[in-house]
């Protein structure tokens, strides 16, 4: 089976991975009064509290900063969740994979679908927030580019999940490393703080792929701009991630079960 067949066969099991993803999401909030709404509530609390503090620290306009933070944080939440959960994507499916032969992509689809559902819930908070703060006149056709941006981020996430999932299953040092690395990336990437205008074009930001992934969403929504360079970086990253998956799939496909 090639990677393409794996993805095709995995996709055809969509009832399975959709159900698993939904049950996983529900079971996280099992017994909680407001259930899955916590996904949105935690984001709202985070954005509100951070906005209070950082508008003071950074001396920014509250309205502008809240929007910058909300869009950045929700996109970052998706990216970081994908990277951190990559480490367990196959490990969690041990019981299934040791019982029958299933396409690897089944569990990648499950992981991505679950996080996309969370992302959609985040939007239920973020989009109305922007409209409330700026009014309907702020909504623009350029926002569609943010939608393309999300498609590009999700595609990247799909392939990263594959290879990072394999890597973390084979090498047990990866999983504990991921959480620390993601925290460092969070602090060095402009998520809480907008890049200072005089350094916006510096290599420090331009070489950070995460900055570009965030700009795919922030530039169209907040500045009504199409981030051409960020799209180029996003497509480049996608090709790289796909190349890694294609290069290693044949080596990994029969071995993954031994590493679980």
């Amino acid at each position, binding site marked *: 089976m090639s990677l393409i067949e794996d993805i095709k066969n995995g996709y055809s099991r969509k009832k399975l991975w959709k159900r698993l993803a939904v049950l996983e999401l529900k079971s996280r909030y099992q017994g909680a009064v407001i259930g899955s709404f916590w996904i949105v509530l935690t984001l709202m609390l985070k954005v509100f509290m951070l906005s209070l503090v950082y508008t003071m620290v950074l001396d920014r306009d509250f309205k502008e900063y809240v929007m910058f933070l909300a869009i950045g944080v929700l996109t970052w939440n998706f990216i970081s969740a994908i990277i951190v959960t990559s480490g367990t994507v196959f490990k969690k499916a041990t019981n299934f994979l040791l019982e029958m032969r299933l396409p690897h992509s089944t569990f990648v689809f499950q992981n991505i679908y679950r996080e996309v559902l969370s992302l959609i819930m985040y939007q239920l908070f973020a989009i109305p927030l922007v409209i409330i703060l700026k009014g309907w006149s702020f909504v623009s056709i350029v926002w569609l580019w943010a939608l393309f941006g999300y498609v590009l981020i999700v595609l990247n996430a799909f392939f990263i999940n594959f290879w990072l999932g394999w890597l973390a299953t084979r*090498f047990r040092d990866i999983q504990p490393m991921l959480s620390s690395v993601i925290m460092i990336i969070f602090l060095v990437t402009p998520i809480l703080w907008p890049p200072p205008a005089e350094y916006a074009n510096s290599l420090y930001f331009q070489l950070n792929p995460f900055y570009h992934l965030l700009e795919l969403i922030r530039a169209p929504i907040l500045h009504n701009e199409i981030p051409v360079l960020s799209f180029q970086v996003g497509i480049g990253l996608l090709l790289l991630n796909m190349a890694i998956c294609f290069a290693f799939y044949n080596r990994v496909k*029969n071995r993954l079960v*031994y590493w679980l």
Partner: protein
Amino acid sequence: MAYITLKGVDFSYRYFPSISGGLLKSNSGLKSHLVFENFNLEINDGDRVALLGVNGAGKSTLLKIMAGVYTPEQGQVSTDGKIYSFFGRSIGVMPQLSGLENLEIRGLLLNLPSTFIQEKIEEIIEFTELGDAIYRPVSTYSMGMKTRLTFGMLMFVEADIMLIDEGLGAGDKFFLEKAQKFIEDLLDSSKIMVFANHSMELVKKFCNKAILIDAGEIVQFGDIEAVISRYNHLRHIALQDK
């Protein structure tokens, strides 16, 4: 016509070492343990085979090779017919989920159509007599209830080859009789069953042949009674040696 054939199969089990090690002594990397070397086996239509052997003889590994979960390093595994593998692990997959949800997941794992799953689930609930308990999380089930649910999962089966490893406890007598009747009917339509279980009572009920394996080699393959007596004899000798 259904069959399972293993020709010249070599297989090593790979695993991560125990949790000992750490800061001063590395425990990284994969270890390898040879389980089968030039292993040959042929199972044909109508065979209901019990896999016997002490713990660690290679029974579960053999079933996983037959199911296509493990790919051998050398040799050929050929099968004909739709395979249903049940290794008794699914019960613990999502213990926080209800029995009903676990059944649904099993149906989806087998890639069955939704309407068929729903119909089958109703049938299973009635057969296993789990009643309202089907809506409770599996983590709250008693051993007997878990056995019933595990058996219920088997009822989805529509396969030519059934591979079953442990999982099925003896359960209560009443249920066991019902289950036997069901399995007998099922086996009339399915063609091959390979069943690994430590309960001689279950094995005798469901199987007509047996394979005794020890340290990755077939000691005996044939009529169930003959193999069981050999197995008991070997166990007796092993106990005396101790």
